Structures are given as structure tokens and as C-alpha cells.
């Protein structure tokens, strides 16, 4: 299975794991879940839509990353998944 991981668990960062999948699945666990969980999930959806990826399983462990960090980690993980060997 193809898999890509990017980011870290340091503060203001997030750890993104992306796997190839039949359907789109997004799981977010954040230290700011109470205030931003839905926004983070919606943001991830929009980033994936922009790059036309809808068959991936995304897991994000978030330590308070801002949107641009989440986006960068997602794109890096996607790229790493694509170049990873099956």
C-alpha cells in the first residue's frame, strides 16, 4: 500500500499520514478540536479538492498548526505517497 507521512508533533505543527484508499476519509485529532475541528476538516477537504485527490485516507494529529502548515504537510505527504513504492 502506498503511504506518505509528513510533519511532526512539535507545537504549531501537525503530523499527516496519507494512504491510498477506495474512498475519501479524513480523521483529525487536534489540541484545538473544541474550537477548530470542523474548520480543519473542511480545510483539508478543500486542499485535496484543489489537487484532485479524493481517494485517500488522511489522518492528522494536530498540535495547533495554522492552515498554511496543514496545507504544506498535506501536499508533502501526498507527494511522498506518490513517489513511495507499493
Amino acid at each position, binding site marked *: 500500500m502506498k503511504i506518505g507521512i509528513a510533519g511532526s508533533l512539535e*507545537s*504549531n505543527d501537525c503530523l499527516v499520514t496519507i494512504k491510498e484508499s477506495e474512498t475519501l476519509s479524513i480523521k483529525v485529532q487536534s*489540541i*484545538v478540536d*473544541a*474550537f*477548530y*475541528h*470542523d*474548520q480543519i476538516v473542511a480545510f483539508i477537504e478543500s486542499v485535496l479538492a484543489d489537487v484532485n485527490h479524493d481517494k485517500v485516507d488522511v489522518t492528522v494529529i494536530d*498540535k*495547533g*498548526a*495554522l*492552515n498554511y502548515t496543514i496545507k504544506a504537510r498535506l501536499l508533502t505527504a501526498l507527494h511522498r505517497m506518490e513517489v513511495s513504492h507499493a
Partner: protein
Amino acid sequence: MKNNLGREIFEQVKPFASSDAFNQESRRLIAKKTTEESVVFLKSIEEAFDLLKIKNGMTISFHHHLRNGDKVINLVAETLKKRGIKDITIAASSLFPNNAPLVDLIKDQTITGIVTNYINGPIAKAIGEGYLKNPLIMDTHGGRARAIESGDLKIDIAFIATPAVDRLGNGSGKFGPSACGTIGYVIPDLMYAKKVVLMTDYMTEHIVEPELASEYVDYVVMIDKIGDSEGIVSGTTKVTRDPVGRKIARDTVRVLDALHLIKDGFSMQTGAGGVSLAVVEYVKNIMIQSEIKARFASGGITGQYVDMLENNLVDTLYDVQCFDLKAARSYRENRRHIAISASEYGNPFEIKPIVNDLDFVILGATEVDLDFNVNVTTDSLGQIIGGSGGHSDTAHGAKVTMIVTNLLKARLPIIKEKVTCVTTPGEDIDIIVTERGIAINPLRTDLIDTLSKTKLPIVTIEDLMKTAHHIAGVPNHYELSHQPIGYVRYRDGSIIDTLYKIK
């Protein structure tokens, strides 16, 4: 029922009106205790329990000067449990993570009430989860003194961890293996508790000028160890190297400078947080450069202030609690390092509490709202993580009250429309300094006039919130549970806000 700040509060309590409403009231004092018999020295806590006839429903008090190294609270609690005593109220000036063994006693209702000024760690968590039977009461340092002297908080027995006791039963924080310096927070307990027990691990022949006079003392109990000296030292007494914190500290000092608050004969108080310590460092540099000498610094005292005292940059330290061993040493050796009681420090009904004489105070915040109300009691989910301590007391007393805080902490904006819990009312908060701008309370037109003429980044509090939202996004509204578990009692005895069970 709602109080003047629009906060929902318990029925049948006195609602908060304003920070100076106490001026309309007169001071209430219950009779001070005196012991006619001489002090009785005991060899074990068991003996003390037998003689004190401790029974269900009593209120037992403690102080927190041994901080996270205290062993007395846990020892007394353990004995309560062993004897099957129930329904005890613990009145401790603060509770720290090392008091974790109390959690089980809360759960089995050995302890059913807690009155304190500051609480964090496992006990705070358990209370947040709803395990404490009666409502938690959170006082201020000055307010606790008022509650005790007025009889609002009646103490049956005060167990006072005392670093040194002499043959007559006088006590002091100056000497012994657990010397912690001043023990100002326990003075009201000493004078007004029905029975007073000094718990010590160090006996000496004679103490000159004891902080705890034997005339109030009933028993002295000798135990192995009252504290761990390592835990006594507060963990935060280091000047921050964090660049954001230092930037906030620098801007804070620019504000002080612009307001001409650093001038000969000034007075100040700061906390022991990293940013506050950096502020003191910068203030000190200005004082050296411009040959300025301060009249006094007050509150919890750190080694940094001791350096200033010893270098003659400040005339007097009014110390209610020593934050490190250097402060404790200085208090023992220096006549200009003076102990004050919680009441002399911040009781609104004292004629002239020290806080009223402060030119400025630098304080922290976990949240600030658009009305400048400050929360240092809970986090944004309502979990208790601290408490006023001297926050509300100094904020009211000082001529200028400044809050230093990051605008964002882990994505969360610190400026909110409404704080989760009000610790200190906005009318007493003058200036908020963040890394992305400085907001001034519109009530303080004098400060706005002066500071808007400078190059300092002065913005409105609404702008600060907008900036935070621009960076992090607008946070979703988080609805607290509707199950009250306690309340925040303002220094005058009125109720300023309610604490809720966490979800």
C-alpha cells in the same frame, strides 16, 4: 441570577457589583483567638487528632508556602482517611499537583468542600469532573484574609507547616531544613482559627521576632519532614529566552517608560512567570542606566528582586511569599526584606494594603475579553488551571495594571468576546501587551492620551481580536456544561463568576 458583569451566578449569594463596591461596606471582624494555656508539644499527629477531637464536618486550613514540596497537607489528609472522618472542608491558600492523594479523599467524601485561591493538577481535574460534593470556592489572596477575619470562612483547625519552632511555641519560616522564608498567607489562619497546630521538623531554642506568635498556638507536632526543599522552589523563576516572550517584555517596558512609571521612588509588582521576570530585568537595566531607585517591590519575591535590594536599586521588599531559596535567604538576613500578611498585602478592608500603594503591576492571563475581563482561573474549556492568587487584589490596587500575554497560544486566540470565566473585572485592567499590539482600556483616557503620542503599536482590543482571527481563523463557540461545581469569589466577598463541570 446575573451579576453586574452579566455572568450567571448561584441564587442566594451576593452578586459582584463593582471592584470598589466594598467602600460602601464596613469591615467585619470576628474575635481573634487567644490561648490562655501554654503550648502543648506532641510527638505525633495521632496525638493531635485525639486531643483536637477532629470530627465530621469540620473545616481544616493549610498554607501553601512549601508549594509543590509540602508534606503536611497529605499527612493530615491521610490521617483523616485512616480515622474514617468524613465531610471535611479543606481551606488551603493554594493546592498543587503534589496534593494528588487528596483526589481519592474527595471521591470517597472524606473531603466534601474546598476553599482555595489557586489550584492546579490532579485535584483541579477531579473537581472539574464533578467529584467534589460541595461547591468549590475560589478566593483571592486578599479576599481569603477578609473571608477568615469576617467569619465567612470559619476555620476549626489550622495545621500550619512551620519550618522552625522554638521552646515557647513560636514559629518561623526562616530556619530549618524546610525554610521557605515568609509565611504571610497563614497569618489570618493563625489569628482566627479555633485551634492552631504548628507542624514542624525543626526545633530551636529561641526565635527572635517570630512570624507566628505562640499566643495563638495550641499545639506543636514534631514530624519527620514537613517538606521537600526542591519542591518549595517555584518552577518558573527563570527569565524567558523565548523570543516572543522577550518581545512582549520589551514592549511592556517601553510602555512603562512612556508613562514615566520608572522614576525615583516608584513601586512595582510582577509575577514569577518568565515574561514578568524579563520585564524586571529590563526595568532593572533602565534603573541602573538612569540611576533610579525604587521605593518598594511587593508580592511573591524572587531572587531577581533580592539582587535589586542588595544592589540598592530598591529600598524595601514587602514579601508575602518567597518564590525561591535566594529570597528565603534574603528575608532571613536583610532588615529591608519585610514579611507582610495576606491581609496587609491585599485585604480590601485593610486601611492601607500594600497593593493600593503600587504604581504598576504586571500580570498574566489565560484569556482576556473585549470588556478587558481577565481569566486566570480556567482554560478555554472551563477546566480549572489556577486562580486569582493576588491577581484581582493587585489589579485593583495598582495605579496601572498591565497584562502581558501571547496573542495566540497553540492557535487559540487569547482575546475573546467573552472570557470563559472572569477572575478579575475589566474595570481594573488598564493595558494588554501582546506580540502583535497593545490595547488600552477605553476607561483610561489618560493612558490613551499619553501612549498614542508614542511610536508604540497601540490598537483597540477589537483589533487585537481581529488580528488573532486573521491568523488562526475564528474559533467555534464552545458551550460550557450547565452544571455548576463552584464559584469565584471576588475579594470583597461577592460572587464574580461560576465554575462548571467539564464536558
